[in-house]
């Protein structure tokens, strides 16, 4: 079982994604933007994997990742970009993130990724 933190501003999208991941027996937590995600990461156990949207109001994904990398404790948490931006692979590379998924999500690829960190 993996603990997934979804950082995503779109309520519907994250609701359905949460339901699908939970249906496979994983735990899911939600943060509506980077600020919330940072608050969450500063308390309790770190998640197994963060699924990070990039285009969000308030603190966006790029800023969140920059802030994460400034804190050694957070920097090592596994993370995947999950975004509808055009060249999501390049954005992930710029953010020093190994995994990326576009929107719409290739669910099989997402499940495979989650299993790696379960």
């Amino acid at each position: 079982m993996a603990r997934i933190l979804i950082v995503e501003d779109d309520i519907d999208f994250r609701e359905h994604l949460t339901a699908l991941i939970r249906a496979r027996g994983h735990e899911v937590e939600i943060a509506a933007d980077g600020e919330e995600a940072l608050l969450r990461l500063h308390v309790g156990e770190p998640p197994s994997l963060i699924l990070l949207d990039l285009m969000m109001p308030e603190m966006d994904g790029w800023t969140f990742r920059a802030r994460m990398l400034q804190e050694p404790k957070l920097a090592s948490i596994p993370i995947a970009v999950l975004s509808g931006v055009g060249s999501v692979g390049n954005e992930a590379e710029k953010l020093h993130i190994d995994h990326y998924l576009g929107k719409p999500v290739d669910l099989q690829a997402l499940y495979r990724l989650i299993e790696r960190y379960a």
Partner: protein
Amino acid sequence: MTPRRFAQMTALAVTYVIVARAGLLFDAESGFATLVWPPTGIAIAVLLIAGRWMWPAILIGAFAANVWTGAPIAVASGIAIGNTLEAVIAVSILQRWPRFESALVDVHSVGGLVTAAIVATTTSATIGVTSLFAGGVIASPHLVETWRAWWVGDLLGALVVAPLILTWRAGSPARSLRSLEALAAGVLLIATSWLVFGPTLAPVGPFQQLYAVIPILTWMAIRFGPRGAATATFVVAVIAIAATSFSVGPFARETLRGGLMALQVYVAFIAATFIVVAALASERARAARDAEQRRRELETALQSMQVAREHAEHASGVKTDFLRLVSHELRTPLATLLLQVERLKLEPDADADHRKLVTNMHAQGQRLHHLIDGLLDFARIQSGRLELHVESADPSRVVNDCADELRPLAEANQLGLDLDLDTTAAPARFATDQRLLRLVVINLAHNALKFTPKGKVTIMLAGDARELRITVRDTGRGIPLADQQRVFEPFELLDPVRNKHVPGVGLGLALVHAIVTALGGTISLESIVDQGSSFTVTLPSGNDG
């Protein structure tokens, strides 16, 4: 002549007469060659400022002053002509002196004034003394000292009085902060001059030296420029001449003219030296101001360049951002929709109809997904903004994934979808942009499934260490030879009447062609009408990423 000009000329003539008469009182050599001759400076300055047309005023003034002093009409006429020529020659030289500035703020202009003064006063002294000699006023033994006195008096007028008028008229910006300093310098200069040139104080102090005024003159020349130097020199000259005329001070001699001769040579050196020092100081100040102004101009230019650059960057950024925004805004709701479809698939109590609907929804959603991706990629390629994300990819995996995704469509169209993977020679991994490669294979296979009424679609993979070939073959209607070149053009739907039941925007093959090109590969087509088509994408495989 306008009344205004007449008044100006009258004023100049009257002034000339008065000042000349005053000058002639200073024990003039032979009665006419005085060592104190401010009219020369006044005449040069006024003609330079007002214009050479004022010359008759000089002629009349000089004539009147000399007649008043007792010169015969003919002699006075000669002297007057000499004095008039003096001013006209000096002004002519200065007006032809390149870049002459009457404010005397640079050494070059000072050089002009000194040159003009020497040439003009030599002319005047020669004509004046010749007139006196010709008129029988002086005898030949006195020719030399008369000429010398005449010349020195005129030269001093040109070097002391003309700069005084010119620099004050030029008007430099009032510097209120300096007025106190100017007052202090003035007081000190007058006091020192009095100590140096005035009545000898007992005991004779170390201050009673001709050099004592030099530091003060230097100070004024540097701090107050040409005007300061001209004024200070004038003040020193006036005090020294006054003292000497009362037979006191270091220049007191048996005769006034003897004392004045020694004094005026001293004043000439002072005047020439400090007018140059002041010009140098002005040049330095001006250079500093110019440098500062240039620095500001550069700074402004730099700032405007920065703003322009930022603006340009912003403008180009807007385009990228627009595509990025469209991409995000189109994909997000579709992504949510497809997640909902996935959730419907999980419904345990669904019957067969329900499942079929969900499968269809999923297939249509995926189609829309690829269409959006394709349009966005096409827009990026068209605007030269396609960013490749090259990474190590497994070609078999890509082909398999594409086939998995298209299987529902194949089943719906009752077509076979076969894979023919020849991996013996083809590399297991190679460097490419996986997403774009998937888009190519999906588009080709999707087209094949669309245009094949019955039979099957086969996706083949083959290659070697040099290249990788992915072929999509169908058993469809085929493409006539005449149309084969057109299929890769955007928005080119072949035979729209016959194919009207086949949905599509006609972007598929144009996009495929553009992407394959961007990936460094080529695409070829073999087709026979009513037998089928075969698209082959060839990509370099040498680099395994």
